[in-house]
């Protein structure tokens, strides 16, 4: 083995150790919130441990309509208009999406924390793949993941496309009591910020 190969091998070892370390760290991080969630279930428990900072909540206008859909699951409502007067978290998700399922424990904690008179979650299930389109599979996954809030079936992704200029899973919108979009978040994370935003919107009075 010549000098160049030795340097490459050494670099490869360092890179490999770094990558392995980061992935193992991620696994540790991934298990921690799940353990916390398993013990937090009371309505008063906070989904975060960090002191919340309320983000900017600019008024982005009235939410787009929900387009022709394939029905609702776990729901007594048939439109977002019926939720006017409540702060609503609208989450685009699909049950097979790893990043979506990672947000569910937090969404569950939020759902437990706030009163139904003030706060509701609507999960818009926009299937990415064929196997995610079966309503029975969606119901089973929702039960497994602890999703108890209303689910809108958006099988053909009509609402998914009309709401988002760029289409990502998961995507969370917070609507104020007047149905205006006040917060938009793509992907996982920022749970303390989301919690603070919901709290701030609930404490606002309706226009």
């Amino acid at each position, binding site marked *: 083995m010549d000098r*160049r*190969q030795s340097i*490459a*091998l050494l*670099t*490869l070892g360092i*890179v*490999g150790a*770094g*990558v392995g370390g*980061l*992935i193992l*760290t*991620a696994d540790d991080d991934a298990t921690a919130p799940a353990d916390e969630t398993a013990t937090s279930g009371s309505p008063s428990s906070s989904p975060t441990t960090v002191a919340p900072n309320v983000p900017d909540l600019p008024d982005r206008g009235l939410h787009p309509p929900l387009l022709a859909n394939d029905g609702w699951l776990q729901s007594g409502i048939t439109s977002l208009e019926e939720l006017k007067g409540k702060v609503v978290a609208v989450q685009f998700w699909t049950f*097979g*999406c*790893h*990043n979506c399922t990672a947000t569910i424990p937090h969404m569950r904690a939020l759902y437990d924390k706030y009163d139904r008179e003030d706060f509701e979650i609507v999960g818009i299930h926009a299937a*990415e*793949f*064929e*196997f995610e389109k079966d309503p029975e599979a969606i119901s089973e996954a929702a039960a497994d993941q602890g999703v108890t809030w209303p689910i809108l079936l958006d099988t053909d992704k009509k609402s998914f496309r009309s709401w988002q*200029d*760029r289409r*990502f*899973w*998961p995507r969370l919108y917070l609507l104020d009591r007047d149905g205006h979009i006040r917060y*938009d*978040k*793509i*992907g*996982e*994370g*920022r749970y303390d910020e989301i919690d603070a935003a919901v709290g701030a919107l609930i404490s606002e009075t309706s226009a």
Partner: protein
Amino acid sequence: MLEPFAEGVRSIEQVCHLVVLAPVAVAMAAARAHVAAIAGAIFGVVVGGWIFVANWFGVNDLQLRLSAIAVIIAIIALAVPAVVGDQTPPRVHGVLDTSAARAGLTAGVGIVVTQWWRPCVGEELGSILTQAPGSPIGQLPATISFMLGISTPLLVIGLIVAVVRPNDRAARRASLVAAALGFVLAGSVVAGQHGEIVARLFQWSQ
């Protein structure tokens, strides 16, 4: 700036990034993992990632297919010096068998295929994607950091090749296989199978 990089490295275990990494790795292999090809590939993925998060181009189906044709041409051009060797016309060989050509072509492949991406969106990438359309320059450092993270496998491939250092015959075969793989991959996109490929990758990972 380390968090986006760390998330990028961690996310390489998620197959959704293979939509970007597989064609770029194939292009690199077609170019016999030459240093210029590795640098070009990583540069292309980083620049392409920035273009993607800034949302400057919404790629429609026709553009997707046309870009796949461009990728096929680039991969063939990268493989020609290795596969055809001395049989290549001198003028063509003189252009293609250069570091500039390898770097340029692999960078081009990286930029193009990053627009095919359907990313798994974690916390850092989510923040970048949420903020980048309004502030593409402000999100540039975080984007570079994340894209360098997911480019780690490309660096690893390059290092492995540098350690193994295959002989000419093995390198030629690898280049030929890579070109064939690239043809199949990009050809599937030309045929309108992009969504199907993403779905298959996803199901294989379950």
